[in-house]
């Protein structure tokens, strides 16, 4: 059962990442991977909410939305690869900016979600 819930969540999360990334990357003409930043921040916010709400949300929902959806919506491989690509193309400051923004906004979103869930209890 738990494997099925993870599959259902990931089956939605991975295509959502692909569609969101494609839409966001088509809105601007820079090399900067705004799409990956957005999906990672969004997924961290939702997983923070779920973690803060642990005990009030069912274990099944945590698997479906957490390990499945958020895990597949967010990606570390694309973040790493795009950072390396920016550096390789000579856009060193954009590579550094990508790491800084992903860390600050992603960790911040996770903490914000957790805090929101606790204060809404």
């Amino acid at each position, binding site marked *: 059962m738990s494997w099925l819930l993870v599959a259902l969540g990931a089956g939605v999360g991975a295509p959502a990442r692909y569609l969101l990334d494609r839409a966001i990357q088509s809105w601007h003409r820079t090399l900067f991977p705004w799409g990956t930043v957005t999906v990672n921040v969004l997924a*961290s916010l939702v997983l923070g909410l779920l973690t803060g709400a642990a005990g009030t949300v069912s274990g099944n929902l945590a698997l479906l939305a957490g390990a499945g959806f958020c895990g597949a919506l967010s990606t*570390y491989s694309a973040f790493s690869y795009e950072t390396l690509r920016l550096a390789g193309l000579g856009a060193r400051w954009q590579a550094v900016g990508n790491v800084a923004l992903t860390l600050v906004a992603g960790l911040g979103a996770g903490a914000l979600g*957790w805090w929101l869930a606790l204060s809404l209890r």
Partner: protein
Amino acid sequence: MLAAVALGGILGAEARYGLSRAWVHRPDGFPWSTLLVNLTGCLLIGVLMATLPQLPRPHRLARPFLGTGMLGGYTTYSTFAVEVQQLVRQHRPGTAAGYLAATVLGCAVAVWLAAGLAGRVWQARRSVAPEPAA
């Protein structure tokens, strides 16, 4: 295209979930399974992205299925971010900082090393391959 991303994402997420169940860590312990997932996922994306341009006719679904789907679904940023925050909350700032540094630096080195090595292997293969007859 979307189906290839979804199917790859499901396979990658199940591999990540399986590893997290096999290697459970305490809430205040070092999240080894997530670190292992992200490090190996970054090694594989480096190999994949150095290999695809070298193939004569890569399948058009190879990148969406293997890269966007499988490796994207396998690796995770959200779990990493929430684990760092939870370690800080559990009064383990040292473990949180070590986990953060190991993930950020380790994954950067992994993708750089893997892409570089795979690129060299392809270059070496080409230089020993017989020249096509004129």
